[in-house]
Structure formats: C-alpha cells, structure tokens
C-alpha cells in the first residue's frame, strides 16, 4: 500500500460523496416544491419584460 492506493480509495469515496449529495438534495428539492414551481422557467423572459417596459 503506497500513497497512490490510498488516493484510489479517496477518489472512490469522494465520488460517492458528491454523487450522494446531489442525489439527496435532488430528492429533497423534488419533494419540497411542487412540479409547477420547479418547471416554471420560460424562455424569453427577459425579452418579454423589456417589451412590456417599452409599452408603459
């Protein structure tokens, strides 16, 4: 066992940690907010607002 063997294990461990963090946060987010809120982003929001401002 030299340093690189430990680094291998470290890399496996860190990968799992990052993956787990994303997975947990993802499930938590999906159960906290309604689907309508999460998918409420619309394309061209900026353009629509700029237009509206011109009109007033």
């Amino acid at each position: 066992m030299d340093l690189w063997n430990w680094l291998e294990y470290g890399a496996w461990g860190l990968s799992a940690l990052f993956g787990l963090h994303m997975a947990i946060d993802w499930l938590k987010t999906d159960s906290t907010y309604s689907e309508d809120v999460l998918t409420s982003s619309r394309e061209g929001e900026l353009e629509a607002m700029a237009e509206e401002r011109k009109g007033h």
Partner: protein
Amino acid sequence: MADVDITSQTMDGMGPHGTKVGLLRVLGPAHVWALGVGIVLVGEYMGWNFAVGKGGAYAALIACWFAGILYSCVAMIDSEVTSTVASAGGQYTQAKHIIGPLMAFNVGLYLVFAYTMLEAANAITAGYLFYVVAQMTGHAGDLDQRPFIILVIMFLAWLNYRGVLATLTFNLVITAIAFIAIIVLFLSTSGILGGGIMEHAALFEGHELPYGWIGVLAAMHFGLWYYLGIEGTTQAAEEVRSPARALPFGTLAGIMTLLIAATLTWYVCSGVLPWEFLGDGVNGSVAPLFDTARLSGSTALVWLLGFGTLFATLASANGCINDASRAWFAMGRDKYLPGWFGAVHPKYRTPYRAIVFLVPIALIFALGAPLDQVITFSILSGLLGYTFMPLNIILFRRKWPLETIKRGYEHPFHPIPAITLLTLCAVTFFAVFLGYGTQLVAMIGFYIVVSLWFHFWRYRFVNRGAQFTMPWPKPRGY
C-alpha cells in the same frame, strides 16, 4: 413596470418563492470568455496533434489556420444571431426561431452530444494523467484510472449543480493558468528568454508533406480540435447580466485567444518533437505540450505544463457539463424532450435535473469507449452544427433584414463568411470521410432515425405558437 431592472441580479422578476423560478443572471464577459476558451483550450494540450499524424507538421499548420478561418466565421455568425436570440439553449433556440422545430431538435442533440463526448474525452485524459504521474513518482503496479475518471465527472457535476457563478469563476482561474502556461513555454523555449531549443528546419527536413496535399485535406479533421467548443459561449445567454454586449465580446475575445494559443502550440511542439512521434496521439505524444516541456530539460516547465494539462481538461469538462445541461434543459422546457427536464433548482438556480441526468451518460462513454472514437463522435456532432450555421444566418438575414430587428452585433461582409464556412465544412466532411467514413454514415443514420421519431411522435407534445418567444415582427415571406 418602470422599476423593473432587467439586469438585476437578485430580482429578475422570478423570486425564488414566487411563482417562477428561472436561471440566475450573474455572469460578466470574463465568464463568457472563460466558458468558451475553457472548453477549447484542452485541444491545444491534447488531440490537435492527430492532425500532424494525418499529414505532417506543415499540414497541421495549414489545417490550424483554415480551421481558424472556419471558427472565425462561426464566432462572427454566432455573435450576431445570439446577440439577438439570447437564451439558454444557444444555437438550439436560434434554429427554433429561424429555421424550424425539427432543425432545432437536431441542433440541440448536436450540442448535447458534442459536449458530452468532449466531457468524456476530458475525463479519460485526466485519468490518464493521474496514471502517468503515478508512474513518474514510482508507484508500483498499474494505477486504476476509473476512480479518477469518475471523480472528475462527479466533482464537476456537483460544482455545476451548486451554481453557475462559482462554476465559471473556477473555470476562469484554471483557464487563465493553462493559457499562461502555453505563453511561458513559448517564451522560454523559443529563444526570446534564454536559450532557444527550436529546430524546425532540421526536424522538417525530408518530411515536409509526407502524404502530399491529400494529407493537408485529411488534417482538417483534427484541425477542428484546436477550436472545437468556442460556440458554446451562447449557452450562457440566460445567465449573463447583459447578453447583447457580453456574448459577442466574450466570444470574439475567445476566438482571438485561441488563434494565438493554437499557433504558439504548433510552433513550440513542431520545433521540438519529430512529426511521427508528435502525430501519434495514442502510442506517441498523448500530451504534446507536456512532452515539449519534458525535452526542454527544465523541471519547473514540466510541472507547469503538467498542471496546465490537468487544468485544461478540468476546465473543458466543466464547461461541457454547463453547456450540455443548458441545451438539454432548454429542450425539456419546450417539451422537445420530456418536460421533466425543464426544471430549475429553486435555491441554486441551475437546471439540476439535466445536470444529474447527463452524469451517467458521460460515464458510459468515458468508461466504455476508446478515446479516438469519442473524439470523432464529438467532432462530427460539432461539424453538423457548423454546417447548420451558414443556413441559419442566411435565413436570418432574409427573414429579418438588418432594419427589422436591432442586433447587438452585426457581422461584416455578409454573405462571404457564410459561404466560406459552408465550403470549409464540405472540405472537413471529406477529411472525416478519409479516416472515419463508417462513423460518419452511422452518425447521420442516427440523426435521420431520431428526426423521424421527433417529427412523427415527439412533436405532438410541443406547443406550436408559444415556442416562438422572441418579440420579433413576423418573418418576411410568411
């Protein structure tokens, strides 16, 4: 509505707990530059040298410059269209507004595949780097590269998941270091500072054009690798504070940086490494700038270029995750793909489902396919995208002439850049055909099948008029 500030960072009309959750506008021109150059710069650290193998050192230089012209056209055309169509999804959204839904679906897939494959190629290279460093520091036995490949993808996906500002600030720092490393290598080996070790004339003697002129054509295939990905700057359109200004500026500054970096890279590498070794990216020079540093005899340069190579692969993979997920997200938002992907994280304001979904896809390719196949898949998707751009700009100018919509940037000499681009794309198709004809046909077969799938099945879930979101007048001729 007078108090609405469309450049506001905190209040863009979609508060986190309001009715709408959108991407966050926090980026400046430097981030756009970092996104564009960060994705591409890895191409100078590895991959471009396959062009040397295809036709010799001179052929690689000619390919470098012709590909430079191709990408200058891409950058100019892209800057004009995107300064008007500023939306996540980039060329996908452009195609949707200018050519039509099926073209948009194809362009969206080109983007996702070009970037996801490039991300896989970067992860493979990073894993290989760890392997080489382990060998150099006296590790007994073979290092298992897989945990490092997975870690690169997981870490960068996690960074992307947590927010775009940190992601691209990270990219800005490591891209700048990788770029400076090339400049330092050039200054210290070319004779400008201290003794030069360049031997171009002696190394080229007898091997000027080993394949003749057809080698120059063949070299165009990997000539694209010097710049592939610069068009990805447009994906940041919904996250920059002032798209009409920052996108053209960041993109054009990016292509200039790359033209300099590509030429310097060719100069130092071809002046030190014999072409047969330099041109074989598998058995010969996997990381040519790093090999050049090794032959310079300076330990400091070896370390600098070693870190430069690692940083370049990380920056590129990072930018690829960013771009691929934006394109995937934008298609989900329009129901071109299942609407489930069109979600934005309420706290981090990132397209988190698209980011997570593309992780296993990237892993399949990074762990399961050979590097040159992955690179070719990426180049082909990119090439199909560049072929779309001249059609795009010609139709854009025809449907909305200059006086009908105000552009943030107008590219000069239209239609010369479009025609040049189309011609160079045709040449590159031929170059790809010379080496990888089967893949080319398999790939286009794939796009034909998914196009039919989209037109006859998937398109029924798409809102017709509502997907046209730009506040433009009716196009001419409709």
